[in-house]
């Protein structure tokens, strides 16, 4: 790996981040944030962390970017221009001084630590027992499966939290339709959504399968599914479901529930989250497939936002 490439990439990361943080226009800021996320993905590739690169590009740049774009559009429709207002001089001077010293201190700290892949030595000999090749998947779904289990509930909880914001009359209801304002774009999205949703599904399923041995996995695949669902919804190929549909609820909890059940089943084999001998791979794949479905649906609904009252078409700016 050439050091010059790394250095240039890092400068570009810092540059895009700087613009994303400090440019006046919010849309430009978000655009640069997405570019920043993609460059971060490159950085992860350069570090040799393909799994993280996929997650960063799909989730860090993709989903987060869409979230910010939608939020900005909704704020604009509500008459909030997303201007930052002026910062008092003393504040930014003080903050500048503090953050510069913080940067220097943190950089010095980081340089005082020798980079090493210390736990790789611990992970490697344990992998044969799992029957999968991807070490990151091994950490996520075996050695530290407990973290991942809790994390899947954080994601579910975030959707519940978003739902809790629904206005009184809107519950239980549907999220605002993320329709394209431009009619032609709408048709394109609709047509491509119909085609792309199955493609996304197949691609995502492959990502999960590959995730046992190659880079990939439930979270990356779930994002692809969520992307397909969102695109299909934007074009009107599928409608967004009411928050109280039993089938929807089942799809949301399926992954976390199966994960939890397998964890509890482990008690029969000796303890919480223990995979019985020889079954590790089968159980990991089961968890990944169910988790990917739930993550896909959850992420799509997180992007869609809380249910809104039925009557007005939201993007038309009903409150304006």
């Amino acid at each position, binding site marked *: 790996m050439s050091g010059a490439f790394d250095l240039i990439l890092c400068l570009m990361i810092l540059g895009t981040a700087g613009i994303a943080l400090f440019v006046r226009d919010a849309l430009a800021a978000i655009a640069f944030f997405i570019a920043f996320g993609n460059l971060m993905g490159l950085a992860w590739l350069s570090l040799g962390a393909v799994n993280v690169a996929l997650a960063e590009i799909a989730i860090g740049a993709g989903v987060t970017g869409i979230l910010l774009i939608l939020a900005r559009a909704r704020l604009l429709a509500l008459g909030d221009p997303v201007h930052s207002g002026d910062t008092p001089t003393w504040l930014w001077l003080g903050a500048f001084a503090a953050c510069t010293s913080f940067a220097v*201190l*943190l950089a*010095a*700290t*980081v340089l*005082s*630590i020798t*980079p090493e892949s*210390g*736990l790789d030595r*611990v*992970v490697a000999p*344990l992998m044969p027992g799992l029957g999968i090749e991807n070490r990151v998947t091994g*950490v996520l779904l*075996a*050695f*530290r*499966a*407990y*973290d991942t*289990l*809790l*994390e899947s*509930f*954080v994601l*579910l*909880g*975030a959707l*519940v*939290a978003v*739902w*809790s*914001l*629904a*206005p*009184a009359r*809107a*519950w*239980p209801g549907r999220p605002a339709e993320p329709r394209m304002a431009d009619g032609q774009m709408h048709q394109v999205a609709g047509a491509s959504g119909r085609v792309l949703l199955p493609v996304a599904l197949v691609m995502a399923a492959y990502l999960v399968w590959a995730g046992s041995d190659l880079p990939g996995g439930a979270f990356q695949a779930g994002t692809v599914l969520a992307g397909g669902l969102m695109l299909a919804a934007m074009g009107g190929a599928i409608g967004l479901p009411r928050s*109280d549909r*039993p089938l929807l*609820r*089942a799809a*949301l*909890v399926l992954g*976390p*529930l199966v994960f*939890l059940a397998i*964890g*509890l089943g*482990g*008690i029969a084999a*000796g*303890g*919480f*989250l*223990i*995979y019985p001998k020889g079954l590790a791979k089968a159980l990991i794949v089961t968890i990944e497939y169910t988790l990917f479905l739930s993550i896909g649906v959850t992420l799509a609904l997180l992007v869609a936002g*809380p*249910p809104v009252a039925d009557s007005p078409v939201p993007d038309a700016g009903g409150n304006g």
Partner: protein
Amino acid sequence: MNLLGLLVAVPLGFMVAALLLRGSGRWLILAAAPVMAGLALWLALLPPGTTLLVGNWDLPLGILLRADGVARLMVLAGALVIGAIGLHALVDPPGGKDGGAATAETFWPLLYLMWAGANAGFLTTDLFNLYVTLEMVSLAAVALAAMGSLAAALRYFMIAMLGSLAYLLGVALLVANYNTVDVTLLAQVARLDLATVMALGLMTAALLIKAALFPMHGWLPPAHAAAPAPASALLSAIAVKLGFVILLRLWFEAFPAITGSAALHVLGGLGAAAVIYGSIQAMRQDRLKPLVAYSTVAQVGYLFLAFPLVAGAVEPSSAWAGMTLHGVAHMLAKAAMFLAAGLMLKAAAGDRIADLGGLAQAMPLTVTAFGLAAVSLMGLPPSGGFTAKFLLLSAAIEQGAFLYAGVLVVGGLLAAVYLFRALSACFAPLAGAGPDTASRGPVTGGVKAVAPLALAGLAIVMGFAGTALVDVSAIEVPWATPTVIQPEVAP
């Protein structure tokens, strides 16, 4: 068989069930409360030294759950408090007046999420796992706060998220420096270097935000005061405690050799300042719920005032017990007080303390619950609050730490001033209008008062169970072998 995992898995199961049952999910608490109380009691009675390696993966990589004294007491108190709050929310639903159907339904999965997150956090010794549990609790906490004031919740959210990342940054430095994030392993390998000091500083700052220690408390009063009563109770009783417990793990277990006495006195000083500042602010409030919320700022102060007392003691068990029991007593008493305050405000003419007149006659049980909770918060005997303060006070005097001793005494007096003010308002004659209090009827009033009364009663009863609780708190303390001490306990 080792069932520690159930304390996390069962609430998560209830969360899923609540989501599947939708509107009727609220009835699940009728099963969840006794089941969790039973599990927590079982945990408290386990033989010392019970641990669980999740998935049986060994340590530098895996995650260790451990039933030490702090975990036992916090999980048990948490089970009683959350269970009671949940049961109370059946009769006094958080959807409340503004008819938020979404609030009424989503309250339940969020309650179970917080329950699982809190238990997971109390039990684990893994600092990254603690990050995930912190996020579980913070997420639920912000959502619950948003049920009252969206603006306050957003402020809470932003500062909590920044705090989480500062904590995670600390974890990142530790994992790079030591190749482990397990507290028990770090205790063996910790060394004094830049990375460790930086990590500890970042994590401490982050956790002080989460625990709302003065001067990082700013987000707490608006968020806690505006939320519906059951949500406020969860926020004040549970959410701020997790940050405190993680700090215990860091300061007393992983890095006791690195946290010098100066740093400990900084924490202690902030704690003392919090006691005084929170109490004065509570005295200045003319509305009931902000008063109770500022009292939380003050009570959190005691937890940190105890840090130098524990570290400075020759025999730390007694100060340690005082600190832990204070956390437990505050959980019980503050949850009771918020629930009672919620009922009182619904019956009163307005949300001002002056509007509480006549309530002592209209809802004697609820006002009694408020009063009993106040007794424990002030630290009057017999109560859990008294036992805790007594242990802390004797530790302070023994060490000649008269400043801390003084704050302990003055804090109690100030608490008496602001809490008696609220109480005496209830006994004042009905102020002019507001006779609609009677329309609620005595029967429902009685049922509604059960949960706050039970919690406040427990806070009082704690005063009689002091020795047993001190013994539990001494299980697997971070230093040496646990020594059982015989403290003086309330009559």
